[in-house]
C-alpha cells in the first residue's frame, strides 16, 4: 500500500489542474489517469478562456469564471517558468458575433443581465455595432450585425496546457499513475483506499475529477455527479497569417495560424462520431461570419464529448457521509483551470470548500417534484 496525502482520479484538465495545485500546497498527491479508453474531453476541446457568456442567471458561476480568468495569467506564467512550456495564453478580451438584428437584440439583453447580476463586482461589456466590429476584425462578413465584447476572454493552446500541468505536477513531487482504473474503493471518512491491479493507494483526501466517469464513481463516495455527454464537433483550417487580434467565440486563430471553427451542441450519448450535416452547418456559419474562410482548406476535424451537468453549470461538492471526498465536474476545463489550480486545490488542501462554492453543490438537483 502506498500512502498519499491526496488522490485525484482523472488526468484530464480538471484533475491535473487540481493535482498540480495540491502538489504546490505540498500535499503528497497521486494522479490516476484511466488511459486512451477514456473519452478525453481534454484532448478535444476548443481552447477558449471564456467568461462573457458564463453564469447568466447564476452570479456565483459568473464570479467563479471571472476568478478563473483573473488567475489565468498567473497560472500561465508560473507553468511557463516551472516547466518551460509556453501554453500560449492570449487574453485580450473576446467578441461573440451576432447574425441578424434578433440575435444582436437578444445578446444585448443577456449582457445587460450579466452586468446587473454582477452587482458591485462589476461586469464590463460593450455591444459593438457592425462598423466598429469590421474595423477590429478583418474579413468580417455582411451577415454579421454586431457583437458583444468583454475584456476577460482569451484563448490558449489547451494541449500544451495539459502537458504543462502534468509536467508541473510531477516536477513538484506528484505521482502520476497512467493507464489505471479504480477496481475497488474502500471508503471511510478521511480514509480512502483505492485498489487498482495489485497496488493499493491510500489517502485521507480524494478528488473525483474523472469527467464523464464521475457519474458512476461519485455514488461510491456518497456523492452525486449527474453529468452527461454532450458532443461538440470542431473544424480546423490550414494555417494562415494572423487575421484577428482576439478570439471570436466559436472562431479563434491559434498562435500557429490555424483557424479553429466550433462547435456543435449535440445530445447523442457516448458517440464521438462526426456528422457531415453538422460539420456543414458549423462551416456555413463560419463563412457567413468571415467569407474568406470558404477559400481555406479544412485540414483536421473531430468530435469530443463535453462533461455536461444537467443545468450546464459546474458541480463541486464535499461528501457529507465521507468527509475528505470531493468532486469537481464541469465542461470548461480550460476556462476554469485557473480557479481549479489556484482556488479549488487550496480549499481541498485546507480541508473544506469555501462557502462561495455552496451554490455549486449537486444538492441543487434534489428538488422535490411539485405535486
Amino acid at each position, binding site marked *: 500500500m502506498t500512502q498519499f496525502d491526496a488522490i485525484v482520479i482523472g488526468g484530464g484538465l480538471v484533475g491535473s489542474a487540481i493535482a498540480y495545485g495540491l502538489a504546490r500546497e505540498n500535499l503528497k498527491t497521486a494522479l490516476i489517469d484511466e488511459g486512451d479508453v477514456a473519452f478525453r474531453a481534454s484532448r478535444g476541446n476548443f481552447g477558449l478562456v471564456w467568461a462573457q457568456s458564463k453564469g447568466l442567471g447564476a452570479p456565483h458561476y459568473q464570479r467563479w469564471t471571472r476568478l478563473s480568468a483573473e488567475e489565468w495569467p498567473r497560472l500561465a506564467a508560473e507553468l511557463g517558468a516551472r516547466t518551460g512550456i509556453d501554453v500560449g495564453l492570449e487574453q485580450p478580451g473576446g467578441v461573440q458575433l451576432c447574425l441578424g438584428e434578433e440575435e444582436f437584440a437578444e445578446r444585448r439583453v443577456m449582457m445587460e443581465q450579466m452586468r446587473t447580476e454582477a452587482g458591485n463586482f462589476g461586469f464590463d461589456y460593450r455591444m459593438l455595432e457592425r462598423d466598429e466590429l469590421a474595423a477590429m476584425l*478583418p*474579413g468580417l462578413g455582411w451577415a454579421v450585425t454586431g457583437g458583444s465584447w468583454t475584456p476577460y476572454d482569451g484563448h490558449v493552446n489547451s494541449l500544451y496546457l495539459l502537458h504543462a500541468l502534468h509536467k508541473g505536477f510531477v516536477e513538484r513531487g506528484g505521482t502520476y499513475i497512467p493507464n489505471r482504473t479504480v477496481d475497488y474503493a474502500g471508503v471511510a471518512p478521511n480514509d480512502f483506499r483505492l485498489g487498482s491491479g495489485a497496488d493499493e493507494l491510500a489517502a485521507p483526501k480524494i478528488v473525483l475529477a474523472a469527467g464523464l466517469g464521475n457519474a458512476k464513481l461519485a455514488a461510491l463516495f456518497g456523492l452525486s455527479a449527474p453529468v452527461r455527454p454532450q458532443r461538440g464537433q470542431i473544424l480546423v483550417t*490550414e*494555417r*494562415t*497569417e494572423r*487575421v484577428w487580434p482576439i478570439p471570436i467565440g466559436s472562431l479563434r486563430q491559434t498562435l*500557429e*495560424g490555424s483557424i479553429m471553427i466550433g462547435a456543435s451542441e449535440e445530445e447523442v450519448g457516448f458517440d464521438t462520431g462526426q456528422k457531415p450535416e453538422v460539420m456543414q452547418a458549423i462551416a456555413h456559419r463560419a463563412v457567413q461570419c468571415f467569407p*474568406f474562410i470558404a*477559400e*481555406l*482548406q479544412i*485540414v483536421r476535424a473531430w468530435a469530443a464529448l463535453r462533461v455536461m451537468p444537467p443545468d450546464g453549470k459546474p458541480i463541486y461538492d464535499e461528501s457529507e457521509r465521507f468527509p475528505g471526498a470531493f468532486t469537481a465536474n464541469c465542461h470548461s476545463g480550460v476556462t476554469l483551470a485557473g480557479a481549479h489550480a489556484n482556488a479549488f486545490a487550496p480549499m481541498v488542501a485546507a480541508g473544506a470548500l469555501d462557502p462561495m462554492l455552496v451554490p455549486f453543490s449537486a444538492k441543487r438537483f434534489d428538488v422535490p417534484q411539485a405535486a
Partner: protein
Amino acid sequence: MFRRRPDAATPIVSVTVEGSEIRVPEGASAAGAVLLAGFPSIRDTPVNGTARGPYCMMGVCFDCLAEIDGVANRQSCMVAVKPGMVIRRQRGKRAAGIE
C-alpha cells in the same frame, strides 16, 4: 536516385518549379517535378521556418506543400502536372485571402 524506368515512354510536359523549366512525364505529380528538378525542399514550415520537401508521396505527411498555379498550401504529391503549371515555394503561412 529518381531514374525513370527504361520502358516508360510517356509524353513529356513542361512545368516551372521556382522559375526553372522542368520537363516531366505526363501523369507525374507536381512533387515529382520538384524532385526531378533537384530541389532539396519546396516549403518553409509556418511555425519554425524549417525547410521541407516531398517525403511520403502519398498525401499523408503534408511536407510537400507548395504554391501551385497561385493556390497556396497544395499537397504537390496529390496534384498531377499540367503543361505550363507553375510550382512555387510555400513560404510559411499563406495569406488569409481578405480583400
